[in-house]
């Protein structure tokens, strides 16, 4: 066979036939099943992934989850911000301007005395110390309780669907 006589299709056919025959001989020794078994045994374990199945989630848990995710942080932020601003920054502003006008000379004298004797930082710290910490503490405790309850329901309750994927699919099958 010369280069000029070389036929592309014939060449392809020759090589593919050679390849398949070689493969057939090989697979008679090492079968597909044997090879698959060998590979599967060598695989690392499946990743354990938390699967959230919306249809198996109870409605109240969904509401609770929504509240915990959006409402509670928003309330905490707004309330804390309000307390801080109203008790410290605004009061400082008031001290210097509005209250001077509203409360008259007496207050003006009083505040002037404060201004003379205290730095702004002292005033801010004084105002912070007068914040309703008891209320804040109770609110925080209630929120912690809510969070603990939420995480218990999410991960440990029997009704929870936040199981590993295998467990979740079993639950879905049973339902």
């Amino acid at each position, binding site marked *: *066979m*010369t*280069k000029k*006589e*070389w*036929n592309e299709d*014939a*060449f*392809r*056919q*020759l*090589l*593919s036939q*050679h*390849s*398949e*025959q*070689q*493969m057939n001989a*090989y*697979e008679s*020794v*090492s079968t*597909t099943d044997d*090879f*698959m078994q*060998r*590979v*599967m045994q*060598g*695989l*690392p*374990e*499946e*990743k*354990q*992934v938390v*699967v959230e199945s919306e249809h198996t989630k109870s409605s109240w848990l969904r509401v609770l989850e929504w509240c915990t995710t959006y409402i509670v942080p928003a309330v905490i932020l707004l309330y804390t911000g309000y307390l801080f601003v109203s008790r410290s920054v605004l009061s400082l502003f008031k001290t210097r301007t509005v209250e001077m006008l509203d409360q008259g000379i007496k207050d003006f004298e009083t505040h002037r005395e404060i201004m003379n004797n205290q730095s702004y930082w002292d005033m801010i710290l004084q105002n912070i110390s007068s914040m309703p910490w008891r209320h804040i503490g109770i609110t925080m405790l209630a929120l912690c309780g809510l969070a603990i309850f939420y995480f218990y329901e999410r991960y440990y309750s029997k009704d929870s669907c936040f199981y590993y*994927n295998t467990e979740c699919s079993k639950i879905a099958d049973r339902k």
Partner: protein
Amino acid sequence: MKQVSDKALVEQVAANGSHPAFAELLRRYQHDIRRFLLSLTHGDGQLTDDLAQEAFIKAYQRMEQCEKGEQIKSWLYTIAHRCFFDYIRGKKMTEDIVESSEAPVERSDERGVSTQMDVQWAMRQLSQAEHLCITLFYMEDQPIDKIAEITTFKSSTIKSHLRRAKEKMASSLSQQGYGPSDIY
């Protein structure tokens, strides 16, 4: 039963390492990958099994890197080729292959036994790059652009490898008395 697409299977394996999904991919492509490696190893079954296993385990571990799930076959070829290349580099088998190609007389007993043996012998005369290109192009039916992805060779380089490989094989087979009619 509707067959799950490659892309969906790849996504399942990438997401949570699903063994059943990977077993399905393995079932679909193990034949092609083993055939490819069997050709690269010149018919060494034991080595082929080892390399194919290594390639599939690497594929499993890096499935999230398979960006185009529908093109997993060429991605698997790439991994298999790298496994083979690493093996060659590690074992310094290059010298052995060169030695075997320089000693065709030793293969003379095998010649004439069957076409299989003659083709095998002719393929041993090729360089590694030529052998790789000819395996992917003619045996695995991969287009030039896919071969370029798998091997990281330029298209023009692949074409010249293919041309030279065909010339060498034609010459080797001609020396053994093969003509165009023998092929059909």
